[in-house]
């Protein structure tokens, strides 16, 4: 396989000296869907945000080791973190809509980051909204307040707003947790479509969902990652319980992680 698009080498992450993730090694390949699976508080969001340096502004955050994206160490000095965030998009758990029109929300980022596209904005808005299957629902109301959309529509709008900047990697932090089953399903199939053009990292604690959509599932438990290809696993829930139990017993004696892939 070609060079990994995301590669973590010996990454340790701590908040105020309290270690959240320990010596993580992980490589993710282009145009795959990877899900990060783990219980609440295990550090899924932390890991995800460290891929676009969204933790930087948090007091007490520290990261050791190297995170390479597109073969570049993103924590090295001199990295343009704004350019990084343009190619590594992040979608939050709860869609954040600004109290402005749908159109304004769509171009919020690119208006500043890609001013050279100005003449193509309306085409690109249309294209991105079509990609998330929202265009037909909003094409006649682009000037309406985005906060009036339903949760599911808002989440798709949030994804479209990120996609319009043409990121190569799309990070999603529990994007379906505030959605009804139907929107959830729609978003899952959308993810599979999107993976044709960009690499997806999807955080969830829904085991079933992880196995429905992903090429690869990465478990995060007690600060370690357990990383396998989807194909090698059929029964998942017992597996994760086992690891969890095992870690609980062993962690006192050994802090060695199990390395996958």
């Amino acid at each position: 396989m070609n060079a990994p698009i995301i590669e973590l080498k010996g990454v340790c992450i701590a908040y105020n000296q309290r270690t959240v993730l320990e010596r993580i090694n992980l490589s993710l390949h282009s145009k795959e869907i990877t899900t990060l699976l783990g219980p609440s508080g295990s550090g899924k969001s932390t890991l995800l945000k460290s891929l676009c340096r969204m933790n930087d502004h948090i007091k007490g955050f520290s990261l050791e080791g190297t995170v390479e994206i597109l073969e570049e160490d993103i924590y090295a000095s001199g990295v343009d973190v704004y350019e990084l965030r343009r190619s590594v998009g992040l979608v939050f758990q709860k869609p954040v809509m600004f109290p402005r029109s749908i159109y304004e929300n769509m171009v919020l980022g690119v208006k500043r980051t890609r001013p050279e596209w100005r003449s193509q904005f309306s085409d690109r808005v249309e294209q991105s909204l079509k990609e998330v299957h929202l265009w037909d629902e909003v094409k006649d109301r682009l000037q309406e307040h985005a906060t009036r959309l339903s949760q599911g529509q808002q989440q798709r709008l949030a994804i479209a707003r990120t996609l319009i900047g043409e990121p190569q990697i799309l990070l999603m932090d529990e994007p379906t947790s505030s959605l009804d089953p139907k929107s959830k399903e729609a978003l899952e199939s959308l993810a599979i479509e999107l993976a044709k053009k960009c690499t997806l990292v999807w955080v969830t604690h829904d085991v079933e969902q992880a196995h429905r959509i992903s090429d690869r599932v990465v478990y995060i438990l007690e600060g370690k990652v357990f990383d396998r290809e989807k194909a090698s696993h059929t029964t998942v829930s017992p597996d994760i319980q086992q690891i969890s139990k095992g870690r609980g017993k062993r962690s006192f004696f050994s802090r060695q992680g199990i390395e996958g892939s």
Partner: protein
Amino acid sequence: MSRSDKENLLLALLGLATIVACCFLVLILSGLIYRGWPALDWEFLTAPASDFGRQGGVFYQILGTLILMIGAGLISVPIALASVLFFTEFSPQKTGLETYRTLIFTLNGVPTILFGLVGYLFFSQFLGIGVSWLTGVLILSIMILPTIQVSILEAVSAMPLSYRETGMALGLTPEQLIRSVVLPQCGYGVLTGTLLGCARAGGETAAIMFTATAFSGVQLPESLHDPVTTLQTHILTLSQEAIDPQSVTTAWGSGLVLMAIVFTLIAASYLIRLRVANPDGGQA
């Protein structure tokens, strides 16, 4: 005493305090209107003062107050905005923000006469501007700086973190974030702060008494070194001649005009806040 008795007592005390405060406001307003109204007419607003302020109108006094007020606002707003945004947007991990917050709250409580004194020594004497409208503008701009800063800082601090994070995740630089997210969401804070700051500058007397104003014989300043005459100093001087009924009436009339200017600014800032609290976007 039971719990609900205590609560009722507390409620009664709070109610009483509110009523007392309102009574004072009503008393001041009605007194001002009752005494000042007879002086008010078109001529009073548009004619220059004559006979050492006893006769004529307060046209140049109104202009003087407006010059000082607007001048102070024009200087103070950009400085306040830049300093707040520096601490909230550019300082890594918000270092120094708490110190800065304490500093501006403290500055807000400094007696205005001290601003006048220091401003007089520095601008008027040391820089040699003399007793002039410019000295007044500079002193007032420093004086109202914390008022505007507090208002902007509160607005920026009240902005949901998710807005900021969303903007950052889209790859906006701090400058772009300010233009696309912070200013659109917090513009009301800049506006209300400006209006309240200007209202404060408009009511200020002590700091400009001996640094920027002259009592009579002044119209519009023609150079940087000319003093102005203002409503607030006009009131002060006239009310010192309490035996002359004409002076007293003019003083009350000037007071009413000044009150109208200040109240307009405060009311406008209140309306803006109200509108921010209930935007028509139907947002929660």
